[in-house]
């Protein structure tokens, strides 16, 4: 059953059809929410909110692909959450910096074959999370969608309903800012390259 047929069935109240779409995109949606917010619990809430919103707004779906549409719901949910957090700042339970390590199920979930690789992956994850948080939300969305989710420029423009030129310029500036921020974590790069070589 293709996406359009599933969406049509879901519009007619078939929850199972909608749930099949959810199962297809939930990892991508959750990963985007996590990269946008940098917190496991908030990312989970936003992903759930995004799928609720998608179900409510199924009648307004006009596109041919469900992916950019549902990612837009995730993006909106994350932006709302960031605004809420700006109004009512919270102290996160997860470590912000690599010297504040706290063992949690989320970190344990990143299992790697060896302890060294696990440590490198965890440090890399923390560095990326920290640096992404320094970006403005709009630039963060673009770099997450292009460089983390590996969407094309056109897909990102459709997802964020932003002109293509704006996507390109936001991406370039976001990459530059990330590079500035990651200067302090550049010792991670050899570990990443080593992991890549081993993967190949």
């Amino acid at each position, binding site marked *: 059953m293709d996406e359009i047929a599933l969406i049509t069935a879901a519009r007619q*109240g078939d*929850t199972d059809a*909608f*749930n099949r779409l*959810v*199962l297809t995109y*939930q*990892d991508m*949606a*959750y*990963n985007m929410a*996590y*990269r946008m917010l940098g917190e*496991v619990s908030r*990312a*989970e809430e936003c*992903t*759930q*909110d*995004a*799928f*609720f*919103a998608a*179900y*409510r*707004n199924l*009648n307004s779906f006009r596109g041919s692909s469900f992916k950019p549409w549902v990612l837009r*719901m995730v993006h*909106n949910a994350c932006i*709302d959450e960031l605004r809420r957090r700006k109004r009512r700042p919270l102290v996160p339970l997860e470590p912000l910096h690599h010297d504040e390590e706290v063992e949690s199920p*989320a970190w344990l*979930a*990143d299992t790697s074959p060896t302890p060294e690789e696990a440590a490198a*992956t965890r440090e*890399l*994850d923390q*560095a*990326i999370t920290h640096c992404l948080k320094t970006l403005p939300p709009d630039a963060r969305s673009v*770099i997450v969608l*292009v*460089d*983390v989710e*590996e969407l094309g*420029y056109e897909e990102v423009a459709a997802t964020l309903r932003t002109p293509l030129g704006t996507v*390109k*310029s936001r*991406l*370039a*500036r976001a*990459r*530059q800012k*990330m*590079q500035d921020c*990651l200067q302090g974590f550049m010792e*991670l*790069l050899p570990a*990443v*390259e080593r*992991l*890549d070589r081993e993967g190949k």
Partner: protein
Amino acid sequence: MRSQVNLDRLNLLSEYLDGRLQPKEQARVDALLASEPDARNELAALHSVRKLLRSAPHRTAPRNFILKPHVARTIHRDRVAIPLLGTSGLLSIGVALTLFLFAYIPKAIQSEPSSISSFAMEQAPGAPAPAAYSINGEPIIITWGVPAAGGRGGGGGEWESAVSAGTFSVKMPAAGAPSEQATPQTDTMAVTDYPPITGTGPILGVSETTTAGKDIARNITMVNYRGIGINLLLLCGLMLSATAYLLKRRRYR
């Protein structure tokens, strides 16, 4: 200027990295990279950032986000209820505004043209007098017991005494007679001293033994039900619309 140039170059290198440039632009960037070590370093930095982000661990959903049937039913109800709320709110506002327009605007419109038309009729040469203001084609002049000033001005001195005496006269001059020269005594009806009305029982709820002016002021309150109704309807409409808007903003993200 320099920062704009740098920004353009940054955009170009970023697109080059993703292979998004046209062949002509790509050749230009190739030449730039061959000639400028700074550009090569910049591209290498962008490349390493992209590589880091792509090698970041991909988070998998900690649980399934599927909708349970009872939750889906709740969402379905919201999907119907919120637009219904919004529509009824807007409808209420529309009805309230329509009632307002029909209730108050015609009065404002009517008052102005009537004064204009009466002025125009007065000015029109040979225009027939309106039936309501004439008897046998003759204009009625009401002097209210005050001697006519005859176009000479003044003449208000006896007004107070005439009113206090409860006297007024209606003068109806004969056809063709100039109104200025008609004597006040001809064809004049005088009504003097209204006796108090007795034996009728309460009028407008006011008994005949009480002082009418005081009782009317005290007992009869003028309530503008139409105005209150329109205001209430408008208020309800605004509240419904605002609620629907807020719910939609909160839920339809």
